[in-house]
């Protein structure tokens, strides 16, 4: 919850501009962009994610450092579990 997870924006969904498909070490989930309204990221940008929301835009280098730091803290598994859980673990598609 408190540690930020780095991810790369793969695709911004046209109809819902407040969400984007984000890749976190190969796991792709939808992430909310509503808190970056004043500095909208585009595909290819890197962001820090907290509880399913992109909170800040960062450089690719910073993203790699952040992921390495999560590993060093022993938190990378918990981070990936969190990312996999976004969208109720795939339930999202059933709703729409």
């Amino acid at each position: 919850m408190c540690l930020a997870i780095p991810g790369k924006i793969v695709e911004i969904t046209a109809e819902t501009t407040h969400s984007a498909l984000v890749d976190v070490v190969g796991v792709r989930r939808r992430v909310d962009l509503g808190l970056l309204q004043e500095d909208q990221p585009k595909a290819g940008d890197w962001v820090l994610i907290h509880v399913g929301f992109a909170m800040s835009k960062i450089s690719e280098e910073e993203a790699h450092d952040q992921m390495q730091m999560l590993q060093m803290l022993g938190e990378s598994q918990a981070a990936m579990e969190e990312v996999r859980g976004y969208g109720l673990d795939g339930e999202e598609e059933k709703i729409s």
Partner: protein
Amino acid sequence: MKYVDEFRDPELILKTAEEIRRLTDPQRHYRIMEVCGGHTHAIYRFGLKDVLPENIDLIHGPGCPVCVLPMGRIDDGLSIAADPKVIFAAFGDMMRVPGANGSPLEHKARGRDVRIVYSPTDAIKLAKLNPDKHVMFFAIGFETTAPSTALTLQRAKAEGLLNFSVFCNHVTIIPAIRAILDSPDMRLDGFIGPGHCSTVIGCRPYEWISADEGKPIVVCGFEPLDLLQSIVMLLRQLKNGEAKVENQYKRVVPWEGNRAALKAMNEVFQLRPYFEWRGLGFISQSALRIRDSYANWDAERRFNIPGIRITDPKAAQCGEVLKGVLKPAQCKLFARECTPESPVGALMVSSEGSCAAFYNYEHRKTVTISNLASVV
């Protein structure tokens, strides 16, 4: 030794540690508080104390939201889940946190509908998937997570989603720092400021700490080098008799914070007159409640909340540890009655709590920076 390569630029780390030694006045005792629980975890994990001079004490602050939540709030939230029509949704961090009658996970085992969500927006999805039920999201966190809850409430209102509500336990970091500085038995020389919380609030809200209290504060990243560099910045200020707000984590934290996030928080939340913090007691204007315009989505207004208050056992000295008066191991219950597996006090509950971090790392160090000297 196998982890040593993980540290980027070990030479720079050792140089920075040397710089810290040069800047330290051997006649002086330094007390520096890291406010954020993430920093506490990193400090123990990386064994930073080993490279600091003995007269620098790192005091672990109140910035772990799970640790400072009074037990009664968990019981209040779980009391709502006694209604079979209610789904209790919370982050995984909350699931093992004990209430007086067990943790959310234990309530689930007793047949309550308790679900983990990883994002507050997923609680909305849960509500849509279960139109015959009411989904109550147990919201927790500092300014790092409060904006996400705010946006989620805005969406629920926009969609007229009425089988959804939020039990709001969001707290704010500035009043907690003020309470610590106001505490009579507290003496601090400076602060390592929170990293991710500051991406939202920026650096300006800390200015009173330097201007009015005369203490330096450096907003800091989470890597070992970030922490050591921030300590250098603090020591330089102390040596020069300065007190400024500085930003060591510029690569992520903008000075003005995240305006969209602050706007959403302001639209949805207002300050509570006071709120209880575990270990610190009641602090005025230190927590957020849901505004009247969102009353339909406020679990505290939609349900009867018992308002349970449970005081921590007298023997648990969480308050003293939280204020840095005692070290974790100096508490009478530490590693005896109170362990991470069976926590009595607040600070043993989460991995970011100072007692849990001390317990997990102090006796089984897998890597410390002092090891680096032998390999560089």
